[in-house]
């Protein structure tokens, strides 16, 4: 005796979403790997052109008074010595604090910050790391015209 088998009810489960999910996941992983959120890089502006002996030693901007010289040497590969006003600094923060004091003193006698030209004179073998950290310290101290000169 055959049992009457109920007609199979077919429920439409919709399109198969698995390949779509696979492709979407691949695209997502691709974008996560290749994209970037801008990174942690930024840009430090340099407005004063480099001064060299052949250029007359004057910056291109109508320097009014004597420049404030920062002599930069590197006794060892990882250390630097910045000399300002016969005082030596090997720490950028200490240099920045001293330069702030120098700027305040200059402003107290009536000099404008835009007329003060800070010139950094690195040695030939001073690493760019030290050069730009000293440059950074000068800008953080409040000077606006900071430039470089030929290597000594």
């Amino acid at each position, binding site marked *: 005796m055959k049992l009457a088998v109920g007609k199979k009810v077919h429920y439409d489960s919709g399109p198969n979403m698995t390949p779509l999910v696979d492709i979407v996941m691949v695209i*997502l992983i691709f974008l996560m790997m290749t994209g*970037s959120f801008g990174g942690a890089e*930024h840009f430090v*502006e340099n407005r004063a052109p*480099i001064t060299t002996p052949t250029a007359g030693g004057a910056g291109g901007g109508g320097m009014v008074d004597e420049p404030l010289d920062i002599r930069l040497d590197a006794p060892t590969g990882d250390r630097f010595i910045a000399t300002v006003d016969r005082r030596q600094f090997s720490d950028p923060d200490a240099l920045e604090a001293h330069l702030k004091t120098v700027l305040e003193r200059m402003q107290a006698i009536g000099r404008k910050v835009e007329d003060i030209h800070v010139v950094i004179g690195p040695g030939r073998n001073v690493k*760019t*790391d030290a050069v730009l950290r000293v440059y*950074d310290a000068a800008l953080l101290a409040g000077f606006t015209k900071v430039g470089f000169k030929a290597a000594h």
Partner: protein
Amino acid sequence: MKSKGLPEAHAIHPNVTPLIDIVMCLIIFFMIVAKIGVTTGAEQMDLVETKLGKRIESFGNTLTVNVRRPIAAHLMDQPRITALVDRDSRELPLIDPAGQRVLLDVLRRFRQEGGTEFTLIIRPEKELEYRFLEPVLIVARDAGVLKIQFNTKQIERVVER
């Protein structure tokens, strides 16, 4: 009368609609924030860390040069400079074997085309000696470039309380 009962439904497939919604949102987010296909010619290198700095929104009127130590023995006196020029990554020596001042010529061209707003972005290696950076600055000055930016890495400024 036959009572027709509905057969028991078996939910064997999870509902993926919310998953697709969320994943699509993530894709759109990453497509908007990702910078794909935008290249300035900046190459992977160890940059100097500075506290001060700002972001550049538009790289339209700029040229990015990567400055590294020389590697070739016969070029030990000049840095290795590369840049993206005319959509092609090129080496721009200070003076090539033929005596041509390649970097100066390129900078003059960009300066002429870009005007006073043309910005030269210099990416020097952290360990690069100043004697290799100095000629790049001199050439930039000779080419009449008024705006120079150093590309550095940002460090967090420690705030003492």
